[in-house]
Structure formats: structure tokens, C-alpha cells
């Protein structure tokens, strides 16, 4: 229970259905430190809200200290990923460690039968066990962020919001249940950067990722300067200064190089690749023995691409029908219609 409307409604619906519901809120970071106010309480308003929702429902509620774990497996990974010339997805890291791994273990330790969350995905029981499907509300669908959930974790999970038509309906349930978070605004993108920018967080942990360097073309010609590779991601056209336009052609980032701290640019539209290699692949089906024809999503919000995915010893090789701009560090998630088949993290081409 994050203290937001989604997980509050999940708790409310399950309680209403007669289940014994135990609310758990993860304290992921020290709120007082995050907002930079000395003496401020370590708990933010969200934790207070989660407790008050639990009070209102009359269910038990606990705050679990996951600060160390979150710092090590999510925030440090976030900074390291930028420093390695990638664009991380901290929400996936959080889901696969603090949330679905640790909370699944906690649920088992406490003798709970299911772990329910407010994610917008559907769990459907198929002939070979639990399947992960996109939410009914395509706008809210979070399946891309949950690709790394293992099959055994999925087996113990419930996602009551996956079947909701839209967010308005969720807020409606909150209203009906008398939950004061019904009108609470949606949370921001990166929860552990409540003020300032993500760059400040990266800079503290990995100063090398925000150190100045050269902007170069594919042949190595220096065409400008930048203020840290962490500020750039593949496909980006902003922050290039004078290098944004070369010989009348708009430019964009095609790679960031951690060792040399170079940002490599190329003409917009011309670049792209149809080969993507993935690491840390998680399969939500029996891993295919040959190549798998499916659609893949290289970013959280984009139309899927047709591709052939072949398992490799390191993970998987993806052959896209049409070239695209995969950003290293992002996820590549495989779909069969609405069903998530698996996914992995996009490798740097030179890795």
C-alpha cells in the first residue's frame, strides 16, 4: 500500500470480498532526507495516508523498512546504469527486487496466501499456470514494467485493478468505500526524486556520469560539448546545443560511451538497428527452443514491433522486422496480443 488510490482500492476491494487483508507499506527512502529538510520526519505523507486507509478499512497495517535494500538494488543500480551508458528503468528494478521478490517472501513468512498489488495488469490462469496480461485500460497498462516478475511470483499474485475500465472507475470505488485518497493525484515518475531532478541523485552516487565530455559524430569528429552522459538517452534530440543541427540535418543521440564519456550523434531518421541483444531475460512461458515470432515493446509507451526472439546463453537475440532505436538499459518485452511472454534488458551493442 503506497498510500495512493490504486493500492488503497485493492485493499478495500479484497477486504470487502471477505478476505483477511494485511496492509504493508514499504519505506523505500527517508522522506526527510529526500526533500532535504533537516529534522523532517523520515515518513512522508504517503505512509500516513496508507495507515489511515487501513484504519478506515479496519485492517492491520505495517511499515517495512526497505531503505537499505532499495538503496542497493534500485537507486545504486539507477546511477550505475547511467554511468555505464544506459538508460535505466528503476521501476522494473524495484518491482523485481523490493516488491515482488521481498514481499512474496514476506507474504509466505506471514502465512499469507496471496500478494495483491495496485498494478494495472491482469493475471489470468491458463492451462500452464498463471499468465500475465495487459490491463483492460490500455492507458494505464503497466505490464511492460512487470516483465521480470517470475512465474512462481506471479503464481502468488493478485492484480484486481487490471480489469478496471479506467482510472475514473478506480477513483469511484475509492469514493464508494469512503477512502480519503479518492482524489489524490497520481504519483510522479521517479518516487525517490521528489524534488530537484534525477541528475542530482545520479551525481551524488556516480559523479563520472555527470562529468563533461565531447559530442561526436559516428566517425569521431568532435562537434560539441555536453555536461554528463547521464543527461542523454538514445533517440534524444534535446541538449545537443549547436550539434543539434549538422549540415542541415537534425541530429539525435545514437549512443553514449561511458569510458570516453562521449555522446555519439547521428542524423535523425537515418539511424536504427534491427538487432537487439538482451540480458537478464525472464520467460513467462516455457522458454522457446527455437525462435519465437511475437511483438516486442522497447519502451514503456510505444507501439509494439514485430520481431523474432531467439534465446541465447546470455539472454535473447531480437531480430526486428523494421529497424528501431533501442536504448540500452531499457526493457524489451515480448507480447502475444495482450499476453506478456517474457522480456529482458537491452544490452549496449558493444557489450
Amino acid at each position, binding site marked *: 500500500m503506497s498510500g495512493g488510490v490504486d493500492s488503497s482500492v485493492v485493499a478495500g476491494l479484497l477486504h470487502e470480498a471477505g478476505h483477511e487483508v494485511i496492509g504493508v507499506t514499504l519505506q523505500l527512502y527517508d522522506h526527510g532526507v529526500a526533500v532535504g529538510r533537516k529534522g523532517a*520526519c523520515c515518513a512522508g505523507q504517503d505512509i500516513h495516508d496508507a495507515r489511515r486507509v487501513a484504519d478506515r478499512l479496519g485492517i492491520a497495517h505495517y511499515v517495512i523498512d526497505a531503505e537499505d535494500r532499495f538503496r542497493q538494488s534500485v537507486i545504486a543500480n539507477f546511477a550505475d546504469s547511467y554511468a555505464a551508458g544506459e538508460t535505466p528503468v528503476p521501476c522494473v528494478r524495484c518491482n523485481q527486487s523490493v516488491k515482488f521478490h521481498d514481499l512474496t517472501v514476506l507474504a509466505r513468512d506471514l502465512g499469507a496466501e496471496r500478494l495483491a498489488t495496485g498494478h494495472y495488469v491482469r493475471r489470468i490462469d491458463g492451462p500452464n499456470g498463471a499468465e500475465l496480461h495487459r490491463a483492460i485500460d490500455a492507458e494505464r497498462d503497466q505490464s511492460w514494467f512487470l516483465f521480470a516478475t517470475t512465474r512462481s511470483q506471479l503464481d502468488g499474485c493478485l492484480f484486481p485493478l487490471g480489469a478496471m475500465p479506467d482510472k475514473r472507475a478506480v477513483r469511484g470505488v475509492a469514493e464508494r468505500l469512503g477512502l480519503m485518497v479518492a482524489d489524490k493525484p497520481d504519483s510522479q515518475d521517479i518516487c525517490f526524486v521528489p524534488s530537484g531532478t534525477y541528475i542530482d541523485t545520479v551525481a551524488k552516487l556516480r559523479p563520472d556520469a555527470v562529468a563533461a565530455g565531447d559530442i561526436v559524430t559516428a566517425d569521431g569528429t568532435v562537434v560539441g560539448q555536453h555536461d554528463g552522459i547521464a543527461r542523454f538517452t538514445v533517440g534524444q534530440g534535446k541538449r545537443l546545443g549547436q550539434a543539434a543541427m549538422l549540415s542541415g540535418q537534425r541530429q539525435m543521440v545514437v549512443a553514449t560511451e561511458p569510458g570516453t564519456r562521449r555522446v555519439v550523434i547521428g542524423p535523425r531518421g537515418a539511424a536504427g538497428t534491427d538487432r537487439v541483444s538482451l540480458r537478464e531475460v525472464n520467460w513467462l512461458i516455457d522458454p522457446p527452443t527455437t525462435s519465437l515470432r511475437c511483438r516486442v515493446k522497447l519502451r514503456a509507451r510505444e507501439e509494439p514491433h514485430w520481431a523474432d526472439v531467439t534465446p541465447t546463453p546470455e539472454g535473447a537475440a531480437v531480430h526486428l522486422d523494421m529497424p528501431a532505436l533501442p536504448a540500452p538499459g531499457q526493457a524489451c518485452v515480448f507480447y502475444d496480443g495482450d499476453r506478456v511472454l517474457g522480456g529482458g534488458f537491452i544490452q549496449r551493442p558493444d557489450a
Partner: protein
Amino acid sequence: MMPHYLDANATEPLRPEAMAAMLDAMATTGNPSSIHRAGRDARRIMEDARESLARGFGGDPADLVFTSGGTEADALAVHALGTNRRIVVGATEHDAIRSAAPNAAILPVDRNGVVDIDRLAAILADGPPALVCVMLANNEAGTIQPIPAIAALCRRFGALLHVDAVQAAGRMPVTLVSDSMAISSHKLGGPAGVGALLLSAEHSHITPLIRGGGQERGRRGGTPPVAIIAGFAAAARIAAADGARDRLGALRDSIERAALAQGAIVCGAGAPRLANTTCIALPNVRADAQVIALDIDGISVSAGSACSSGKVAASHVLQAMGLGTLAGQAIRVSLPWNATTADVEAFADSYARMAGRMRPSGMTNPMADRAA
């Protein structure tokens, strides 16, 4: 499900005698500072309580200052006695002391939580006059400090001694042998919201933290809460008379036997302890998960010190005792004055189930089993 409250060191259940005394006193209108009959009636209740408490704890009623509780009594002592003195505090002191003296020198404790007397002698022998703050009994491990020896040492070196007796008062004989001593009502079965600072005769005139209207002989401003003061005194009288120590000690031993049978470790068992308190570590199992599992079975215990979020921080007390990672794997069971064998049996059942489920679990060390 029958609730089993085993968290007395957080707060004791209200003793019926305290409730009766409060109900009586609440029916009395009057401010003890007023000169009329109503004021005299209120004052009589308050002064009866003051005399009763002072008698019970070996102080002079004239030098017993009512406060809002143990925390304020500790803060008042540090403020009043610590001015122009360097402050030395035990490593396992409560936050009431630690935050009142943030720059204090820390007096280490041994593995059982007992302060290092030789180290204290060395600290006091060298340097300007000091105020030493050592608690009589620890809130987490129950460790009882050798206060008479510490008091003698302080006298020898011209140091002042403040004793936080909040957890000890009502649970063992407690007598003022220091320059000041803090006690609290709700830790001995009275209502929360009142405590007292007992002062020795040499320190009866102190500078207040709250000046206000000069109440408490100018040592603590604000209208005293007469009814809860009456409840405080009634609870203290009953606590001193009820002789529950042997009974609670036997129940505590049963709790420890049940935990030891599951592979637990009792922290600080090698020193004299409060009869009602035990601190039990289950190696490789997070303390917060233990507290939650027991709570789901209706058993209330605690771990470390909960901040306002409810997040449990690893215990500074157990860390100071050198318990390392066990500090984050220990729960505190503290029996209230009305604990029963049924409470102990329920604990033993639930603890065994919990230990059986959790011992082999991955929650113990998440990083050792990092999800790919």
C-alpha cells in the same frame, strides 16, 4: 481471537485502582493554585499524591516535580543539572536522554548492557565537572545498572548523577540515591501524560524548562493535571505492594524456554534484569517480520524503537551491546502486571509456528538471494 498484550515496556495496562482514583479526582473541580475551597480540594489531591510518590521512591515531597512524563523529566534534569557541565551518558540510554544531550560523551556497555564502571572512572578522573546520566533499567533488554556503585563514583569525582528510572519504577524497589531521578506514570500502570523528576536536597532549586505561572515551586509551569496525578500515585502504591516480580519472572523464564527451543538467543541474560523483560533474537529473521507474524496471531510485542512512521529502526541498545546483525533480529517481550500463563502459552505457540515458517526464509538476507 484473544489478544495477548506483551508490550508493557511501551505502556502498562491501566491498573483498576488508578482508574478509580482518577474517576474520583475528575469529579473534583478546581485548580490547585486557586485559593478558594475548590482550589484547596484539588491541591489536597495533588499533594497527597506527591507525598505518596515521594515516600515510595525515597524522595522529599518538596523536591518532587510533576512533569508531562518521563521524557520531560529527563529533559528537565539535563537542562537543570547539565548547565556548565560536560555530560556523560550510557550507550543504551533512552532517546529522552540522548536527544536532550546530543553532544554527550558516550559511556560504553558490555555484552549484557552493563555500563563500564572503570571507563566511567577514567572519564571522570580527567576533565571538568560532569553530569552523568545512566538509566536504572533498560527498556529493551531490561538490564539493571549498578546505580549505587555509579553514584559513589560520581560523588568521589564531584560529578552529578541523573538516573532515568522510568522502566524500573513499579517493577523493582527504587530509591533516590542520585542527584535526580525520572519516573513515569504509564510505565507502572498509571495513566500516560504525567511523570515526575525527583531531586536531591542540594538541587531543590532548579531552572525550569517551562516557566509559565510558577507552578511546582517555580520548577515547572502549567496547571498540573490533578486527576492523572492521582492515578499516577495510586498505581505506584499498588505496584509497590503487588509483589508480582516472582510471578512475572517465572512467566518470563517460560517465554525464554519456548524461544530457546526454537533456536533463539536471549540478549543480555548474563546481567541482573527486570523480571518482566526479555529480549529474544531469532538469528537470520528480520525483527519486523517477527513482530508482524506475532501480531497477526494477536500477540503484541515490539522490536527496536518505532519511529512515527511505524518503521522499525535497528536498536541502538542492542548495537551498543555488540550484538551486530542480531540487533535487527531481536524482539522485546515485556510482561505487563496482569500477564497470565495463557499469554505465555499463546506466545509459545505462535512463536514456534513463526520460527518454523521463517527460519529458512529469504527475507533473512535479501541481498544473498538477489532476483535476477
